[in-house]
């Protein structure tokens, strides 16, 4: 049993489900303590609750479970290199009277076995060297879980609950499996560097220095002083490059964005394409109707906001340096002008570039933007993020 289950564990690992040994041992412990009755349905629920800790991974788990237990269905059955005689005996053992009657109806046991033997040989021919089961969950009349009503059920556990298969075959959690996976936590930890605490709100923390001072002045009678607790007061404007060459990096940007969103109290985000021009937008679907002018941003958000640009900075140098260089529309002023304008207002700014740092020197546009940014361009690795955040708090 244990050996069988450890292949299940490996299967889950293969499906990139983050399972740990500790959780695995918990599952074994639960099995030992008879938490579930021996039903595959309950085993499904139990293993899911022990091994999968995020509903986004439920779909992966369902697939792995389904795949694995299709295997199990035939493990109890036959393997091609098993002698045919043994196989026949097994088949006979597992037949119910009704099934035997059905076999008679099909022309008798011998005829059926003759076909089975032929089929086996065919299979051997087709999957040479392969370790294929016979008709696993297929429509062949042979093998476990066939859908053929005339099928021979070989070595199948009778107590199996058919409806159980459905639970994971339905794959109800498919739409929860969005592309943003684990990993945002790392980013969040890196982003925490940016936290800057300021005292605001209602007084709720003991101000020790003040209390000592006041108490001393009060001739030793305790005079308590409270002060507001510190809150994260960092303000961030985030500009995300969208579309075009950024398509390869969308996942990373999503992670970065979702991590940043929960980490800061004041986070405003805008989208741009390739380079910053006179407007940006908030909703990518309505980029042509709902635009925000850069001037409005400069007027609305104080200069204590920190700027974070996310983009691969990969484009034609014209798009940065020439008026009318934008691929979106005809811009009156060059992207570089707008970038400089922003950087004049907001002196804390970094550019995060998802392209690997090694290739930066080979792309002219990256070089130009890096120069505009005053060298403050960093790769979107954990280390790169940390460097970027350190620059922002300086």
């Amino acid at each position, binding site marked *: 049993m244990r050996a069988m289950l450890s292949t299940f564990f490996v299967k889950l690992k293969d499906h990139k489900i983050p399972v740990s040994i500790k959780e695995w041992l918990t599952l074994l412990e639960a099995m030992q303590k008879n938490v579930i009755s021996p039903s595959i349905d309950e085993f499904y*629920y139990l293993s899911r*609750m*022990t091994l999968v*800790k995020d509903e986004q991974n439920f779909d992966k788990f369902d697939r792995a479970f389904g795949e694995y237990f299709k295997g199990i269905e035939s493990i109890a059955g036959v393997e091609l290199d098993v002698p045919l005689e043994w196989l026949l005996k097994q088949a006979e053992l597992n037949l119910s009277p009704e099934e035997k009657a059905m076999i008679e109806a099909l022309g008798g046991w011998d005829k059926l076995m003759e076909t089975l033997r032929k089929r086996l040989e065919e299979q051997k021919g087709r999957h040479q060297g392969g370790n294929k089961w016979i008709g696993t969950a297929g429509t062949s009349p042979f093998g476990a879980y066939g859908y053929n009503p005339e099928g021979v059920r070989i070595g199948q556990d009778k107590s199996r609950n058919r409806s159980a298969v459905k639970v994971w075959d339905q794959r109800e959690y498919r739409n929860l499996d969005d592309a943003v996976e684990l990993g945002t936590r790392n980013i969040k930890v890196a982003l925490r560097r940016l936290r800057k605490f300021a005292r605001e709100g209602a007084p709720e923390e003991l101000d020790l220095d003040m209390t000592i001072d006041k108490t001393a002045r009060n001739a030793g009678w305790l005079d308590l002083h409270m002060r507001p607790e510190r809150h994260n007061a960092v303000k961030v404007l985030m500009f995300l490059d969208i579309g075009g060459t950024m398509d390869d990096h969308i996942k990373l940007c999503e992670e970065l964005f979702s991590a940043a969103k929960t980490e800061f109290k004041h986070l405003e985000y805008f989208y741009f394409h390739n380079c910053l021009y006179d407007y940006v937008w908030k909703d990518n679907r309505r980029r042509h109707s709902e635009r925000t002018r850069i001037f409005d941003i400069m007027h609305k958000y104080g200069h204590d906001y920190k700027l974070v640009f996310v983009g691969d900075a990969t484009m034609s140098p014209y798009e940065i340096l020439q008026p009318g260089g934008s691929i979106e529309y005809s811009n009156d002023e060059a992207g570089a002008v707008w970038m400089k304008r922003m950087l004049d207002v907001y002196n804390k700014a970094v550019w995060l570039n998802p392209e690997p740092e090694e290739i930066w020197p080979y792309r002219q546009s990256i070089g130009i933007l890096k120069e505009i940014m005053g060298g403050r361009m960093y790769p979107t690795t954990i280390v790169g993020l940390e460097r970027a955040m350190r620059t922002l708090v300086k």
Partner: protein
Amino acid sequence: MRFSGSAAYVSTDDLTLAVNAAITLERPLLVKGEPGTGKTMLAVEVAKALGLPLLEWHIKSTTKAQQGLYEYDAVSRLRDSQLGDSRVQEIRNYIVKGMLWQAFTSETPVVLLIDEIDKADIEFPNDLLRELDRMEFFVYETRELIKATSRPIVFITSNNEKELPDAFLRRCFFHYIRFPDKETMEKIVEVHFPGLKKSLLREALEAFFEVREVPGLKKKPSTSELLDWLKLLLAEDIPPEALKSKDRKTIIPPLHGALLKNEQDVHLFERLIFMSRQSR
């Protein structure tokens, strides 16, 4: 101890199994799910069904892990010392027990609910690893080790506002409460409104699930909204015919304010209805 649902709470098979596994293996059960699917109610109902006391620890953004263990009230001790109170000699008098301490030292096993753990700081769950795993902690002020006499049954709920650390997740069982399907929903309604007219229930549920289907809603109505709505329908004595499915596409269900709590959602909904009315 086995939990098998209660008169006031409809528990699906998988949820029941999860609760029982958590009870048997004495590990915390982390419950996630859409708002209004009864995450918090689960702990309340399990405590009621098993006849155990319930301790609730509601987490806020300012909650610290230490507050769940104990707090040392140095300020009152200082005050008392000036007043010459004899209690001052004993530091124990100024240690305020937190929820975990109370749960650990209770005579009978208790159900402990840690509600909305994702509201707290990102490091909060990490600070509770040892406490939840070994069910013990050390009080530095009195140098004593508090160890659970009987391990409490711990329920932790999360609304997914923050990701929880892996090390924490490894120590929990996990259950995701799915939004109930029609069948389960009927059972849930039956529990709350026994003897509700079948026709009204059917129409109301149909209207409810249709509203949920409306694309682009900011907040989909949940079970608790459905129950409120039904209560209103009953109070206003709305006949089931008013919810009839034939003209559903062209009328706004009565009292829809109970289902849609967001004015943008109400607008969106009304616009959709208006559009389908025009296309006729």
